[in-house]
């Protein structure tokens, strides 16, 4: 714990990034207990109001509180993206590490398969998955998981390969360590920093993909509070009341920016080469 504090003190950028991410995640998690208004409650007389004392960020076309819908939209977005990126990390990571460890035909065939999935533009593949499963929040989560699985596989295979060929793995083999032991206690721990960095950066990208999908009407469906959906609904009332659209977009930007900055700062802090240089 004290080591973490010392690291944060050494890197102000990392501290700022952690602050932004922790704040947003905490607000999303604790939303029901923080006294926000009901994100589903429609007050028709109060439609499309600008920011005011009762509705800090104004109201949308159905008179719902924009601030509450943004906070609940964070929950939708973070929930979808954490699950899907988590699944992609576990499946893709396993494929990448096994490919590096086993090598040979297994490696060649799985990496070829990953190449094929890679050949699709990311958003297009996600749209294809949703076309098959039907547009809803779960399809969007599965689509993001499918898209990010080969990315994790490729990202982790390279470093895992380097570790597999390192002297300490050869040493472990020489003293009779089994395959499971080598993977679990030698390869995995050495991949922790790259996993942290990449998960953070890919979460940032996944948040944008999720927002794009729900903006296109392919993700969460009304009346679920969703940032992308708020933007596409707000677009119809833009001249009349730009606030819901502007705030929803800012929220997406802030969320994605936080994770991107965190990934960037983590890379600077964890990368031994960069650390030696500074």
């Amino acid at each position, binding site marked *: 714990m004290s080591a973490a504090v010392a690291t944060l003190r050494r890197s102000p950028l990392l501290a700022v990034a952690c602050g932004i991410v922790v704040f947003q995640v905490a607000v999303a998690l604790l939303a029901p207990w923080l006294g926000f208004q009901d994100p589903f409650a429609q007050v028709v007389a109060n439609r499309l109001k600008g920011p005011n004392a009762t509705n800090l960020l104004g109201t949308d076309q159905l008179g719902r509180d924009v601030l509450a819908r943004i906070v609940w939209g964070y929950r939708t977005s973070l929930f979808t993206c954490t699950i899907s990126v988590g699944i992609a990390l576990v499946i893709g990571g396993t494929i990448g590490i096994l490919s590096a460890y086993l090598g040979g035909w297994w490696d060649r065939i799985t990496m*070829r*398969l990953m*190449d*094929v*999935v890679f*050949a*699709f*533009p*990311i*958003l*297009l593949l996600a*749209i*294809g998955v*949703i*076309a*098959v*499963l*039907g*547009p809803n929040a779960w399809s969007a989560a599965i689509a993001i998981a499918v898209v990010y699985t080969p990315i994790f596989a490729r990202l982790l295979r390279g470093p895992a390969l380097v570790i597999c060929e390192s002297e300490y793995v050869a040493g472990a083999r020489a003293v009779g360590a089994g395959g499971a032991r080598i993977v679990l206690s030698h390869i995995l721990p050495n991949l922790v920093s790259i996993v942290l960095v990449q998960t953070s950066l890919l979460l*940032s990208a996944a948040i*944008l993909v999720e*927002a*794009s999908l729900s*903006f*296109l*009407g*392919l993700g969460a469906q009304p009346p679920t509070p969703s940032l992308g959906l708020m*933007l596409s609904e*707000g*677009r119809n009332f*833009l*001249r009349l009341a*730009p606030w819901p*659209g*502007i705030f*929803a*977009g800012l929220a*997406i*930007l802030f969320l*994605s*920016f936080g994770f*991107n*900055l965190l990934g*960037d700062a983590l890379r600077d802090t964890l990368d031994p080469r960069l650390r030696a240089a500074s």
Partner: protein
Amino acid sequence: MRTRFLLGRVLDLALVLLGVSFIVFSMIRLVPGDAVQIMLGANTEITPERVAELRARVGLDQPLLVQYWDWLSGAARLDFGTSIWTGRPVSAEIAAAMWPTLELTLLATLVGAGLSIPIGAFMARARGSGAEVAVRVGAIAGLTIPSFWLGILSILVVTSAFPGLSVLGYVPFTEDPLGNLQRMVLPVIALSLPMLANLSRLVRSAMLDAMGQDYVRTARAKGASARRVTYVHALRNALIPYVTSVGVAVGYMLGGAIVVEQVFAIPGLGRLVLGAISERNYPLVQATILVMTASFVFVNFAVDLLYAVLDPRVRR
């Protein structure tokens, strides 16, 4: 270029295209439930005759391998059958929607890739200065600004400032060149910004890498000017990773174009595929995804070859 290298790349290309086509082909078979009933149900009343008729028309009553062969050989001749609801050939619908997307993607790629070199080179040269830090933070923001939000905001700002200006929709360049370009400005900005941000960061780090190399020190030692060292010696070598990233970025562009088209009401491939999804027109969805993905694959093939031209070490 070595024949063997070229042959290997062509073989890779064929394998990837085959794999892509199989995945796209499988889509309609992976639909939970009966795809034919879902297609009909989304548009008309379901009767046994209609089900049988549509099933035969889409070819779903054939053995799987026969279906795949028919579909693949059709696709190779750009024959994707007739669209289920309009009765027009799918290839004609795609061809009509292709031009706006092509123009949008091409212009955005030119702007994003073109501007990223001077901006990245500037960041590398002015490292640590206040201006450079500002540009760097701007680059991270550019990466994380949702392009559809940027598009919506730009529409809001521009239409309030110039109420008479038409910024939505699409007119073909051949009909009204000025009107065409005028409507393209905002979508191109919205679409190219993330690419610009990404590529200029890449140029920056590649240049910083190159500036530390021996050949740059040699160039300096023999008295080349700072400008010449930056733009000739360092930049040329920094371009090698850059070319690959431009190829990858085209994939993001094609995806981003779908979203940006929706924002600016441009009748391109994105609108086509979204419309097809909402009416459950699976053959049209498949054909559009296949065409877009295949063009992305070909772009990357070209990039691979270009890469080998730039970097002789790859050709082995």
